[in-house]
């Protein structure tokens, strides 16, 4: 302990003053959280900066068009080199599974890290309150300004803040739409009223939604609106590391005075001054910095989004009063209670979650790598199942649907194989399959009555085409030839 600098009592009273207003957060008054620098604060900004991709991603180009574009009217989804059509959408379910499990595994290991660092509600609220702090000052100044009567000065400050909020809301919506509409066309059409109504409605919805949710509702969303906050609560277990107050070390808490004497917080204990108080000096800095207004010293609770800002605050105070850091730290319940720590790899939960993650990832990788340029479907005509022709042979009719997923129109050659001698009509000329479309063509297969010795003969359809770069692609589909029962 001697290596720590001595306490600086002069700052202590100010610290106490900062948390005087605190009460349980039921949304009755705005939380004005203090912003202080620190390790977790830095990590929080780093995580939040990933969202810049959301704003600037639409301007990336690939092969002369937007790199990632979800073209809903044309039902084509461009992901860099790959074009995904609705037929390949089973991959989307794997993607959703992947992220759902990722959320579960992250929560099981480290609590609500998603909430604390990456959730758009957290990030946008963080940016909005950062703007608020730049314009209106620190939390006490903000509270004073809120209570002050209206004046031109107040109006100017408030108007500027709300204008900035709305602007961010607008660009949130604008950037969102750019992923679907294309950034270039959006900038070209939007401001001259040429974009379609869905575009304007989406941008309006996002603008209003962002402004209200990040500007006004803030942590109340996490408390009362967000289902994930509740779902994640049941994913935590004793081994999950979350910001935790070290009760044994901290209690009994007591006020620290300028003369470095301490008084107990509880009036009942005021008579007998503690010989030595716990490390918690009851400065309530952990509460003052909390964006959701919870008191972490009460333990893990629904309002805690595990953002670690209280850890920064407490560490700063511990430095000031000359105590070791880590009174509030990322720790599991087991660790706090002195149970043996179980290595991550020996927890079945980790293995189960990881294997689901791997399976989903493998499926997506397989799907993306095996995106055939053409897809062949064969629909056997059912009415009639077969037709007796005048020469006595049996004819089956098939509708072939060719989906061309490449970026060029292809001339597709069709052929049919069967163990029986067959006559094929409709495959003489290549079929022009337009890119991004399904082209249907009819093929008739005939088998002589005498060659047809069973009611069901396998037939195999082949489609082959040459890509403009010379590559050969093919697709194959099995079907059956039906004849009268013998």
């Amino acid at each position, binding site marked *: 302990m001697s290596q720590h600098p001595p306490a600086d009592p002069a700052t202590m009273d100010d610290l106490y003053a900062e948390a005087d207003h605190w009460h349980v957060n039921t949304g009755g008054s705005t939380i004005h959280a203090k912003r202080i620098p620190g390790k977790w604060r830095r990590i929080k900004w780093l995580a939040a900066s990933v969202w810049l991709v959301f704003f600037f991603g639409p301007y990336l180009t690939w092969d002369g068009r937007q790199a990632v574009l979800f073209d809903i009217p044309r039902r084509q989804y461009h992901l860099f080199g790959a074009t995904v059509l609705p037929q390949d959408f089973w991959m989307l379910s794997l993607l959703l599974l992947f992220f759902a499990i990722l959320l579960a595994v992250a929560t099981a290991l480290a609590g609500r890290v998603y909430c604390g660092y990456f959730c758009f509600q957290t990030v946008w609220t963080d940016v909005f309150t950062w703007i608020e702090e730049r314009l209106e000052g620190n939390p006490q100044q903000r509270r004073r300004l809120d209570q002050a009567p209206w004046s031109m000065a107040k109006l100017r400050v408030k108007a500027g803040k709300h204008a900035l909020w709305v602007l961010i809301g607008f660009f949130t919506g604008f950037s969102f739409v750019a992923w679907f509409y294309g950034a270039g066309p959006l900038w070209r059409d939007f401001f001259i009223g040429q974009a379609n109504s869905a575009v304007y409605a989406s941008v309006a919805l996002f603008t209003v939604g962002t402004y209200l949710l990040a500007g006004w509702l803030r942590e109340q969303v996490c408390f009362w609106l967000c289902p994930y906050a509740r779902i994640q609560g049941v994913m935590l277990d004793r081994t999950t590391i979350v910001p935790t107050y070290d009760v044994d070390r901290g209690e009994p808490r007591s006020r620290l005075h300028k003369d470095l004497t301490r008084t107990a917080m509880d009036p009942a204990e005021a008579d007998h001054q503690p010989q030595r108080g716990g490390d918690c000096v009851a400065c309530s800095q952990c509460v003052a910095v909390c964006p959701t207004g919870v008191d972490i010293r009460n333990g893990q609770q629904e309002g805690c989004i595990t953002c670690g800002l209280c850890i920064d605050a407490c560490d700063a105070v511990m430095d000031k009063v000359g105590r070791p850091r880590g009174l509030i730290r990322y720790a599991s319940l087991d660790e706090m209670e002195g149970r043996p720590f179980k290595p991550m790899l020996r927890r079945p939960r980790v293995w189960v979650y990881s294997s689901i993650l791997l399976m989903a990832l493998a499926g997506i990788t397989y799907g993306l790598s095996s995106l055939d340029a053409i897809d062949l479907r064969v629909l056997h005509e*059912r*009415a*009639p199942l077969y*037709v007796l022709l*005048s020469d*006595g042979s049996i*004819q089956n009719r098939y509708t072939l649907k060719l989906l061309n997923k490449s970026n060029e129109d292809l001339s597709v050659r069709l052929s049919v194989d069967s163990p029986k001698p067959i006559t094929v009509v409709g495959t003489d000329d290549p079929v022009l399959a337009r890119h991004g479309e399904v082209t249907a063509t009819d093929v008739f297969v005939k088998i002589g009555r005498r060659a047809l010795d069973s009611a069901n003969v396998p037939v195999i359809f082949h489609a082959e085409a040459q890509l403009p770069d010379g590559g050969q692609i093919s697709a194959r589909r099995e079907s059956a030839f039906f004849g009268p029962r013998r």
Partner: protein
Amino acid sequence: MAESNPFPGENNTGHFWDDNLRELSNPPPRWWMIAFWLSFAWWVLYGILYPMWPTPWAQDGPGHTTGILGWSQIREFERGMAQVEAVRAQFEEQIAGMSAEEIIADPGLLQYVRSSARVLFGDYCAACHGSGGQGNPGYPVLADDDWLYGGTIAKITESITYGRKGAMTAHKDILTEAEVDQLARFVVTMSEGEPGSDEDWALFNAKGCIACHGPKGNGVLAELPDGTIVTVGASNLTDGIWRFEPGGYESARHTILYGVNQDVEGSRSAVMPAFGEAGTGTSGRLESSQIKKLAIYVHDLGGGR
């Protein structure tokens, strides 16, 4: 009710029961009231913009206010239909000015014709000929290559436009029982691909079957130099396809005895109604472009032969 308010400054209504049970008069939250009045304003606005109020006093019978936007469900429906028609119009205009052969040569148009004619076929043809042209007892299969009146586009167009009515004499008073038996056996023999005996052919020719079923019994009276086949709609007796179910000796015998479309009890009925345009002496149920589309579709059912 207490005389004096024991809870001053509490914002209660002044109503008390059992000393301390009282009714508070807290206002609803402001956002709730704003939403309430906005809803109310919307209700008023809606009443102005859209049809809303019944007008039972109106002179021309009970009606309703129309709203200043003039919106109505039927008009919205009509607008939607007009949009669909506009999309179709570009195809329909092309189809109207093209021959069936030209349409078949154009893959895009052919695709459109197949899709739109499928609907027409379901509406007008499928009741008798089956949804896929698979036929029904008494109604010919359209998906095979056996055509009574010819399977070219021109012949199919003719069949749809003017209809068809086959005719075969009832032979129960013309032929002896033994002759009917012999001819019925002969028909079965031919349908199995066997040539038949000279006596059979002699009877076939002598009794006039040749006049309609042709010298080869395949329903072809003559083949013109350009490949056109002349028929009167008599069936091809030399293939395994039977015009009247279930086929075989009894079917053949019945048809020979009672004929087709004769005023005789038990006679076969084989009538295809005329669908042609109004003013052509037909029912006028289909327009010429619809018939054109149907002809292509039906021609296509069996592979276009």
